[in-house]
């Protein structure tokens, strides 16, 4: 028996004080607001018993005259290691019950332990943020007796570095403002809870002061805005459990860092009730199909995880498995904007390509592309720069890429489905039609004088279009260029073969990406 019982008692007492978090009232308020307490969130995120806190004893003690601990406020954040499906990750979790989750302003100086972001980089393991905090608080100015320069980049530099080293996921589980609002977006995937999650640099009181506008927090930065209009948040979850399930699912497709390839899971055939791909494209060229039907028929059963279903809906994108190997997958969705690439869909695709390239996933592309979205709204949104960014992402990417031309492939939007370098393979289905632009509409522009000069302009236009459509058969192209055309039902087998062949290249592409990942 050593003589350390007093010190061991103090250690136990401090651990107990930290565990009290914001106290019974704060915890009760958290529950009333329909939110889980920070420790419950972590327990649900990581494998049972796997959590090990980092910097557990951080906080602010209040001492009596004899140096005894009188009171204690824990840091409004818990960091630590945990395991997800057996693989180690770093978790940081904001705690709204402690001072509204705001940073204390204390700390700093010599001897600081590394930040959790640095640990994730050093250990080469994913970084998960459970956000429920409001950033800096004016209260801390009073405690410090001064203000400070907004030098958050001292820490945020590591959040930026993380994106090119390990998978980063953010969950918005409360009202998140200030730097935590940017943390929400500094991620490869993010999710927010319906009704309890909001994101903004400044909330309703700040908006009122700055602009005089009265607006509620849900209307200002809730899921309707961010998962449908702004695209700042990928997915919405009906509960915190659902949000946590999405985080675990997303990470299951990715390696622990850019230095490894993703793990292969048990291969499975596509769902037994999947559509027959030979029948999926309608004979009527103006009729739509369901993009999800194509994915289900191509990938391993139940393996598709959709990213940003509410934003950029002209493209359906996500992660899936083919013969057990993780892949990125995208399909034009003709049911929204005819499947055209608008700024939102272009953004979404750019991010998917960058994700696949950073973490060594082959890309499977099912193209039915009418082109970049036309019209005044598209011009206002800046479609040309979005298109240019997309083309840069395509050209700069290295991961093996497999395209099936399902139907239309037109114009510069169609061009974004082709990469003339690296391991790239393209098959066309017999339903394919392509060109530098759509024949219908294109004819009206290219033959305008001829059409206008005719006695019956409408008949002339129809005659020219019929003439052009006759030479639009994909088989004529195949004769001249060698473009391979396959029966759609052969696509799964072709994808299985391609993804297996891709593994050798992917293994060679591990390491820091030549292009840093940008959110």
């Amino acid at each position, binding site marked *: 028996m050593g003589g350390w019982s007093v010190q061991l008692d103090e250690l136990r007492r401090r651990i107990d004080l930290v565990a009290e978090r914001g106290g019974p009232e704060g915890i009760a308020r958290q529950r009333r607001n329909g939110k889980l307490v920070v420790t419950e969130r972590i327990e649900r995120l990581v494998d049972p018993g796997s959590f090990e806190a980092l910097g557990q004893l951080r906080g602010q003690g209040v001492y009596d005259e004899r140096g005894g601990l009188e009171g204690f406020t824990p840091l409004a954040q818990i960091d630590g290691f945990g395991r997800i499906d057996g693989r180690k990750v770093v978790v940081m979790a904001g705690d709204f019950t402690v001072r509204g989750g705001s940073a204390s302003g204390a700390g700093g100086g010599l001897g600081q332990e590394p930040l959790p972001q640095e640990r994730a980089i050093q250990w080469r393991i994913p970084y998960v943020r459970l956000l429920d905090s409001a950033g800096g608080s004016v209260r801390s100015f009073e405690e410090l007796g001064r203000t400070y320069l907004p030098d958050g980049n001292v820490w945020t530099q590591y959040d930026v570095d993380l994106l090119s080293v390990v998978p980063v996921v953010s969950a918005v589980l409360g009202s998140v403002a200030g730097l935590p609002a940017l943390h929400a977006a500094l991620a490869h995937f993010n999710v927010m809870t319906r009704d309890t999650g909001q994101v903004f640099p400044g909330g309703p009181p700040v908006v009122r002061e700055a602009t005089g506008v009265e607006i509620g927090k849900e209307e200002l930065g809730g899921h309707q805005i961010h998962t449908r209009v702004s695209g700042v948040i990928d997915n919405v979850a009906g509960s915190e459990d659902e949000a946590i399930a999405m985080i675990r699912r997303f990470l299951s497709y990715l390696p622990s860092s850019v230095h490894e390839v993703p793990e292969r899971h048990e291969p499975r055939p596509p769902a037994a009730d999947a559509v027959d791909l030979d029948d999926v494209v309608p004979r009527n060229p103006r009729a*739509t199909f369901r993009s999800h039907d194509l994915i289900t028929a191509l990938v391993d059963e139940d393996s598709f995880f959709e990213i940003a279903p509410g934003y950029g809906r002209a493209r359906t994108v996500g992660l899936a498995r083919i013969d057990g190997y993780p892949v990125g997958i995208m399909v034009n969705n003709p049911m*929204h904007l005819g499947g055209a690439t608008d700024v939102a869909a272009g953004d979404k695709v750019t991010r998917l390509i960058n994700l696949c390239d950073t973490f060594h996933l082959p890309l499977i592309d099912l193209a039915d592309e009418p082109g970049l979205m036309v019209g005044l709204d598209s011009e206002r949104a800046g479609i040309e720069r979005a298109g240019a960014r997309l083309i840069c992402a395509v050209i700069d990417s290295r991961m093996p890429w497999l395209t099936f031309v399902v139907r239309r492939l037109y114009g510069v939007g169609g061009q974004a489905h082709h990469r003339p370098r690296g391991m790239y393979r393209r098959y066309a289905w017999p339903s394919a039609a392509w060109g530098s632009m759509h024949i219908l509409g294109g004819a009206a522009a290219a033959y305008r004088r001829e059409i206008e000069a005719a006695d019956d302009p409408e008949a002339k236009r129809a005659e020219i279009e019929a003439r052009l459509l006759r030479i639009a058969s994909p088989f004529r192209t195949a004769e001249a260029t060698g473009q391979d055309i396959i029966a759609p039902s052969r696509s799964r087998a072709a994808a299985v073969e391609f993804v297996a062949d891709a593994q050798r290249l992917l293994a060679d592409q591990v390491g820091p990406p030549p292009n840093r990942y940008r959110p």
Partner: protein
Amino acid sequence: MIVMSEMAAQVWRVLVEVGDEVAAGDRLLILESMKMEIDVVAPVAGRVGRIDVEPEQAVDEGDVLVELV
């Protein structure tokens, strides 16, 4: 319930009339966007209370198409 357009498009066909009873999933009208015909279906069962658009009319995202009562 108000049924809005989810995208910029042109109204191609209106398939219902004011007073029609519709079931959830019934087609109300067809929009045309980027040369694709896109069905607009009733999200819930109801009676068509009013129709705000006619064929060939251009609509924007968020424009009211039909009200179901």
